[in-house]
Structure formats: C-alpha cells, structure tokens
C-alpha cells in the first residue's frame, strides 16, 4: 500500500518540529562555549576581504593618552570610514586619514605587545585556554557570551574610542579577527589593528605565551 501523501508530509513536519525543540532545549543547557545565540550579534556579511596593511612606524606611537569625553557614543560620532582614494596619484609622504581597521605585521604586533596595547583573542575559548598571548582577552566571536566578554574587557581597560586595540585569531584563512573588528567598529572604536598572522605566527617566533582561561 502506498503511504498516504498527507501522512508522509505530517511525518516530515514532525521530524522538523522535534529537531527544533531538541535544538532549543540543548542550546539552553549547553556550556557557554558551546552555546550559540539564535540571532547572531555579528555583522555577518560575505566573508570580508583583508584590511589594508599598516606600516610598523604607525604602530609605535599608538599608546597615547585619550582625551576626556572621547568614549564612543551615538552622540559623539567618530570618523569611521576610511579616506576615499584620491582621483590623482598622491605622493607617498602625503598625510592620509588612517583606516579604522588596519592589518599589522608580526613585528608591529610585537611592538604593540611591548608597548602594552590591549590584545583581543577572537578564537574559540578552548583554543584560548590551550595558549594565548600574555594578557590577551578571550573574546570568541562565535560563542554566545561574546557581548558579556566584551563588556568585561571594556570595564577593565576602559578603552577610549581612539585607543588602539589589537585583535588576532588563528592566522591563515581565519576571519574571526575581522568580524570582531567590525563589531567594535560598529560600537564606535576606530583604531583597530588586526594581527593577521595571529597566534601560530606568535608561537613560531618564540614570543611568550600564557595558558589557561580568562
């Protein structure tokens, strides 16, 4: 006997409903590192392209005292967009507005570390526990408690909108740093430095690392 059409349809729908219910319950009881917000807090467009690379000499003078009242806020708009390219060739020495998100080299990342700039680790919390840059904050972009972790970071460091923040992840094809940078950019921070080569490069260069969670 052929199964009635409506019976199969009902079963298809039932399987979908059970899966949805199971997902809701499982996500509610999952550990924070395995939990996923039903609505992502990230600006998830197409996978972003690499940001422009900033030369080392721009990283050196980064730790500057922030002027009072420069906390990012909707009432205090900041120059978030990069400068438009000039229609005519610009001499190399001409001053240009810095892009809000820039990519830094390994050397620049090391200089930023020595200068005491805050580092955000965008990798998963499990990877962070296995090893990270000393003093880095774990802000895993794909985990549900990202917002809380960013609040903790801001409460501790109180970064002003123009303060430099270095972000890194696993290097290579990893785009988590870029996602985190775009999130911070949307929150008003506009001096975001992406250490593109990331943690594997840091380890390969025998720089100090720290283990454990935060």
């Amino acid at each position, binding site marked *: *006997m*052929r199964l009635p059409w409506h019976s*199969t349809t009902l079963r298809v729908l039932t399987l*979908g409903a059970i899966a949805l219910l199971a997902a809701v319950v*499982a996500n509610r009881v999952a550990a924070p590192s395995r939990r*996923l917000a039903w609505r992502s807090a990230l600006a*998830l467009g197409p996978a972003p392209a690499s940001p422009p690379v900033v030369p080392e000499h721009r990283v050196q003078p980064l730790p500057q005292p922030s002027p009072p009242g420069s906390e990012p806020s909707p009432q205090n708009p900041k120059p978030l967009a990069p400068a438009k390219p000039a229609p005519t060739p610009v001499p190399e020495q001409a001053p240009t507005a810095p892009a809000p998100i820039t990519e830094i080299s390994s050397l620049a990342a090391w200089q930023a570390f020595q200068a005491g700039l805050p580092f955000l680790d965008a990798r998963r919390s499990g990877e962070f526990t296995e090893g990270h840059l000393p003093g880095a904050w774990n802000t895993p972009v794909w985990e549900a408690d990202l917002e809380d972790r960013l609040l903790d970071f801001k409460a501790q460091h109180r970064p002003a909108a123009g303060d430099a923040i270095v972000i890194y992840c696993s290097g290579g094809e990893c785009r988590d740093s870029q996602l985190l940078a775009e999130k911070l950019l949307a929150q008003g921070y506009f001096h975001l430095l992406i250490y593109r080569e990331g943690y594997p490069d840091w380890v390969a260069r025998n720089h100090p690392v720290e283990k454990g969670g935060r």
Partner: protein
Amino acid sequence: MSRWLLHPRLTLLARLALGVTFILAALPKLADPPSLAKAIWGYQLVPALALNPMALVLPWLELLCGLALLAGAWVRAAALWVGTLLLAFVLGLALNLAQQRPIDCGCFGTAGPRTEAERLADMRWDLLRDLGLLLLVAQVLAATAQRKP
C-alpha cells in the same frame, strides 16, 4: 526500474549507510554548534539571520533522520529530509567550487588547517560523496513508494 534496484536488501543497505553516515555527521556538530555556524558562514550562501538557527537545528535533524533510517521507522519522511539536506549541500559545494572558493565543508565537524588546493580537492570528494548518498536516497524513496501491503 529494474527489480534488483528496488530489492528490499538493497533498500536495507541504503538505509543503513545513510543512517550511519548522518548520525556520524550529526555528533560532532551537536557537540559544537558555533563551529558549524562558522562553517555555514564560509559558504556565503545563507542569510545572516538564518545562520545560527540553521547551525542549531541542522545537527538534530541529521541525528533524528539517521536514527529513523537505521530503525526503519518513518523511513520515507526521513529520506525526504536527508535528500533535501543533501541537495542543499551539493548546491553549496558546487557553487563555491565553481568560483574556486576554498571552504571547509563542515560535514563531519571542523577539519584541521589545510592549503587552498587541499580544500578544493576535499570539496570535490565531498561533492562526489554527497551525489552518491543522493543516489541511495533515490533508491529508498523509490522502494518505499512501491511498498506493497
């Protein structure tokens, strides 16, 4: 269709193969939905709003369908879901392969670091595997459609 193509033993084998495959695919995803969300994002085909709900529900759907196929219960409904999912996977892989965009399949959890060439090669194998699984689904659907009392 030839009689041997609809033989109950072949259907049993197809059900078992599909069931085991989908259960094995579901387990690592259930253990780590954020990694699956990241993998789905890599396909650049799913709207941002649907990304996380898909990463949360898909593994459970795979597990339920896999169990149903193994147990022989609600076989046709499970096969229809599995076929739909496989069609979506094939489409996602094919579109990215056509643009030579190397992605992580995310089919059986996260893979280790690989070069772009290795990823593209893996995607071709994943595509072939999914097409083979689709043939098994077609067999199960054809066999259950002609079930006699």
